[in-house]
């Protein structure tokens, strides 16, 4: 048995595979939250992305190299449209962000708009035509240990790494990133130095939301790969917890995503190896951790200590008297 059939290697490789949608979704949510807007609609936006990507992949003709990027763009647009509803409600109309986000998930999510569209488009009967398969990067997939883990993943995984690096650079090394953090920490301060609070919030809620669309596309084009109603199975909620888990930092969020990815894949992997632990227990683990993280963070005081953006969840209105 080669070293690459080692249990550790297999779990690590599948952690990255299953963690990839979580990286996209939590990175997008991180951007929105850094601007001070909590978007609980991640799950709904992911499903919108998944259905849009599945449609493009099934119905658009052409080679995979054209169709797959198109599918990703479609997923981003679909989820971005969903996010723009949330942006309009919370930024312009100053609706409670929790209620608006929940409404978005209910409206777009399982048994909602995404299922409706899939029904009309008759998705889910066959696998999608084009999908993201694992690629052998520089022929290094056979290298012991790191080969299967780092050099035998799909393009979406490598794309997510680029985004994580870009987001870190953006947040901490650019002027726009400084402005974004300022808007999330103290919109009054940002406003007083001439930074447009609503422009930053709109942009990051919608752009961040489109990342959730890519996360959805990961399911329908890479993991499953076909349309299944409610196929994201609550991973949008895990993504929300990951943002907190990663202290609102892209790099730590990535690590958290792979940790949860490992938990998600543990059941399958162990079963394949004939190791018998209750699968129900293993499948439940990520969700249990999610609940713990969300409970901790729902307490305002502990949220402050974790380094949450100070204005997170608060609408901003200039002429307050």
């Amino acid at each position, binding site marked *: 048995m080669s070293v690459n059939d080692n249990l550790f290697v297999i779990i690590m490789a599948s952690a990255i595979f299953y963690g990839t949608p979580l990286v996209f979704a939590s990175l997008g949510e991180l951007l929105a939250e850094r601007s001070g807007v909590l978007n609980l609609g991640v799950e709904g936006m992911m499903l919108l992305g998944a259905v849009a990507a599945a449609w493009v992949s099934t119905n658009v003709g052409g080679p995979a190299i054209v169709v797959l990027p198109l599918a990703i763009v479609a997923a981003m647009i679909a989820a971005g449209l969903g996010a723009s509803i949330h942006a309009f409600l919370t930024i312009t109309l100053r609706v409670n962000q929790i209620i608006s986000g929940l409404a978005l998930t209910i409206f777009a999510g399982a048994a909602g708009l995404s299922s409706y569209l899939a029904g009309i488009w008759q998705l889910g009967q066959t696998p999608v035509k084009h999908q993201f398969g694992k690629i052998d990067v520089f022929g290094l997939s056979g290298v012991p240990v790191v080969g299967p883990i780092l050099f035998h993943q799909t393009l979406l995984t490598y794309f997510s790494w680029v985004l994580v690096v870009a987001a870190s650079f953006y947040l901490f090394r650019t002027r726009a990133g400084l402005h974004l953090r300022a808007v999330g920490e103290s919109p009054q301060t940002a406003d007083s130095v001439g930074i447009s609070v609503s422009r930053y919030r709109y942009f990051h809620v919608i752009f961040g939301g489109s990342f959730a669309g890519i996360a959805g596309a990961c399911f329908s084009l890479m993991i499953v790969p076909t349309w299944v109603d409610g196929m994201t199975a609550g991973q949008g909620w895990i993504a929300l917890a990951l943002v907190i888990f990663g202290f609102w930092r892209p790099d730590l969020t990535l690590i958290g995503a792979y940790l949860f990815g490992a938990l998600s894949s543990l059941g399958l992997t162990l079963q394949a190896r004939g190791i018998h632990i209750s699968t129900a227990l293993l499948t439940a683990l990520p969700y249990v951790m999610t609940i713990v993280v969300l409970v901790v963070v729902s307490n305002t005081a502990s949220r402050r*200590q974790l380094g949450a953006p100070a204005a997170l969840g608060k609408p901003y209105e*200039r002429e307050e008297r």
Partner: protein
Amino acid sequence: MEAVTAPAVAAFHVTKKFPGVIANEDVTFDVRVGEVHALLGENGAGKTTLSNILTGLYRPDDGWMEVAGVPVDFQSPRDAIAAGIGMVHQHFRLIPTFSVAENIALGTGHDPVGGRFDLKKVEERVVEISESFDLPVDPRAKIWQLSVGEQQRVEIIKVLYRDARVLIFDEPTAVLSPLESERLGVTLQTMARSGRSIVFISHKLGEVASIADRVTVLRHGRSFETTSENDVSALASLMIGRDVESVKRSAGAIVDSSSRLGPVVLEINDLHAVGDRGLKALEGVSLDVCAGEILGVAGVAGNGQRELVEILAGLRRAGSGSICVDGESLENGSTRHPIRLGVSYVPQDRMGTGLAPDLTIAENMALKNFRRPPVARPPFIRQSVIDAQGRDLMEQFDVRAPSETTPTRRLSGGNVQKVLLAREMSGDPKVLVIASPSQGLDVGAVATVHQLLIDAAESGVGVLLVSEDLDEVLALSNRIAVMYEGRILDTFDRAEADAQRIGMLMGGQLDVSA
């Protein structure tokens, strides 16, 4: 040169209305190049609204402004900054988790989204400015690590960094100790001498008289007069709109009931506590208050006063130490126990902590006795009794409102304070804890509230008065304690109290000769 003769900034007939309030009406004034120009007015006279208009945060409903003789119409703060107008806000516009340099650089530079920012260059420029205007500050420090005085220096550097020609200071001394205030005055004059113009917003007559070259008086949102008067009492009558003598007398009639002090009703022993950020807020506070006296706690905001009063009201848990009310020890962190023992509490945050803004006056007045008859008839309460009690108390405490069923959010600041005092005084308390009782009130209401406090003391209540306004503490208290960084530095009898020494102590200056 024509630019020399044109005022640095001028407002003409500026009017700004908010729902139900006219904040500014027909305000006209001008600021010359190189002068310190004070905007003097009471709380609510429209000073802050006017400065928000000058800095582009609000747009006037009517009237216009000129900068260096050219009419301007600011759409946003960015326009005002571009025109060279900068503001040092009363509540600092700083981000606690950012460094000094990051805060200063925020919003500057107009390169496209995605441009890198060079923190080193910012830091160098910050050091340069801080040296040339004697505003020492470490550009790498995080804001939350700085004292209030240092934070204000960051705010000033932030404005200078943007090359502002006109600097607006909104009540800059409100958060400073007397010593720091004096130093700020020198800085303002230095900046003016360097060719900048300073707009100095204040209601403190003394500092206006000593710092400002000219003064524009605002009253009820209108500009009254621009004068180079620097006589305090003349300015005072301009500000209030009537003779100051009456005000002085009503404030002076207060003192000296020291002979009629009763037994100790509130005894605080070695109290320790942590604040919201987990830092030490109280470090061994001991105080006692006798029946019939007003003990004034003086100090600059943020030295543990808020934590102290919240512990007394049971809103915050003490770390260690003991509190006795009339000999009985107070349960830690219970709000009902202090009420049962006769501790009344009038918080600084009157609308937030003190009253339920959407409930009626009468209901708010019943918030502390609704458990007992006659208001209660378990499991019900009697609305008619609540309303009758409300009417009685309104008359007794001179609350001016259409009726007892008016929601308290519609009341003016003075009436809000009277509703609170009515509720807190009506249950025969032994101790009254009151924080910043006159903050935000107009002069008439201040006099009434002060009289109510004196009445309370004379009726045998022990009053613990916590205030950042040293004049108020001096005017009302039998004894004065000075609080600094969570400790009581010293306690004086009113007769021995000396404003200057107290001022030094408020700034943490223990040594008188220093």
